[in-house]
């Protein structure tokens, strides 16, 4: 079953077409990586999926419903969670309050489980803003998990992290695979190759190629435009 589909999804900023007529589909239970150079429109695309960025035209379908006109908070309640490319936590609130807000303040155990998953459950009273950058990214990831979403959207979760932190993150994402459908924006090709079931390459707002990691990395168009540059 397709959990998420977009039809001719388009975003135009003034004269600039950031995302152009993207048809996309994501099957329940898969990890789908969205890659492409800076400015390709990846964040804009997931912004339109989550409702954070209003689309210029096109449709978003989630779980068989056309949610194109829905505000972001309703989409989240329907079963999406979204982590921002630039860390967005409640810096002046405690870790506990951050995770409780994410969980919906109904089930404290579920909230603590999510914090435990990233190893931050010993610091409940600490202010989120006092955490190191790496731990803040982990907290935001935990907040996404605490929402127990059907679709977890991660916008470059490993950006700015060290090698070892990235490895830790991969383990975390892998631990979710199977239970949660994941749409992952990622720059690191090793991460993409090892985690993703499917890959879509965006370039200048258009889909350049889409398929399994193997077919995409073998696609000459992709090699020219993107992967080629990384290896040389």
């Amino acid at each position: 079953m397709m959990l998420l589909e977009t039809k001719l999804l388009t975003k135009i900023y003034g004269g600039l077409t950031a995302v152009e007529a993207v048809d996309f589909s994501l099957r329940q239970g898969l990890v789908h990586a969205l890659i492409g150079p800076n400015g390709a429109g990846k964040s804009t695309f997931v912004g339109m999926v989550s409702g954070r960025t209003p689309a210029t035209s096109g449709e978003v379908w989630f779980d068989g419903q056309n949610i194109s006109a829905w505000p972001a908070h309703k989409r989240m309640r329907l079963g999406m969670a979204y982590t921002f490319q630039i860390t967005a936590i409640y810096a002046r609130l405690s870790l506990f309050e951050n995770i409780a807000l994410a969980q919906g303040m109904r089930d404290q155990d579920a909230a603590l489980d999510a914090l435990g998953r990233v190893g931050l459950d010993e610091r409940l009273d600490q202010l989120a803003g006092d955490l190191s950058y790496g731990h803040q990214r982990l907290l935001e990831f935990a907040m996404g998990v605490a929402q127990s979403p059907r679709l977890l959207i991660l916008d470059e979760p490993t950006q700015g992290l060290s090698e070892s932190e990235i490895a830790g993150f991969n383990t975390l994402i892998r631990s979710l695979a199977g239970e949660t459908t994941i749409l992952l924006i990622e720059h690191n090709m090793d991460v993409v190759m090892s985690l993703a079931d499917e890959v879509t390459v965006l370039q200048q707002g258009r889909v350049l190629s889409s398929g399994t990691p193997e077919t995409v990395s073998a696609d000459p168009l992709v090699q020219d435009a993107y992967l080629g540059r990384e290896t040389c």
Partner: protein
Amino acid sequence: MSPSARSFLLHLGVIAGLFVLCFTLSDYHQGNLARIMVLATYAIGYNVLFGYTGLLSLGHAMFFAAGMYGLGLAMQYGGMSPVPAFAVGILTAAVLSVVVGVLALRTIGVAFMIVTLMFAQSVFLIILYFGTWTRGDEGFVIPQAARQVLGMDLTDPLIRYLAALLLFSSALLITARMMQVRFGRVLIAVRENEERTQMLGYDVFRHKFLAVLISGSISGAAGAAYGLLFGYVGATFASVQYSIFPLLWVLLGGAGTTIGPLVGAVFMFYLIDYSSGFTNAYMLIAGLALVLLVLFARAGIMGEVRRRWAPWLP
């Protein structure tokens, strides 16, 4: 002791303290404190929007005045007795809050400040325009004979004090409880990071709208009580000055703390009372106090207490 038990004891302590004070204070201070408790209720209403939700309104006098005129006109021309007139006052402020909420919440930041300011100016001008009934700047007096509830004379200093205490305690306990439950915690989340809150699935507009409604209604209740307990209704209470006061009280006392509004109102009232004893430039003294505050205690008095000594402070 759990934080919620501590905060409950604190609020009970404050209320008990105010109750005891009414039998020990001189007539002069008893009268002052009755007035301060009504004004602190106004500040509590303001704090819901400014301190907890992070929306800075420059027009709250319109809610205070709506409550006051709602009550005053209902008593003066509708011949109503105080209790239903008080309800009319709150209802008037609530209706105004709905209108302001729907329209002003389309804007954020500075635009929100300007829009609320303009709304309040309109209300002020409307009051002046209908001077035949409102008596404009001059205002009107609610006669002593009308200010009787269940055989109690609200003009009696002791009864007036206890009525003010009842109003203040209700507002304090209701808002303190509100900030412990889900709704209030989401308001704080909106204040801290609106976009994150929306992306966690909370309806940010709905929460802000309800915050305006609750804030406006409490301010209106304070305005209605002020008219009823002190027997005077006038356009001054709709002026810009009365929109700035609650902001100053809350800033002084500690925005986003439950007892900050009371502390700020007491502090400011006595600062002005004391300094006007030897200078006409008492607003200068108030200004100076604020400058010192910004320099040395940015979070306000109770905010500073919370930061330094009592992180559990509600």
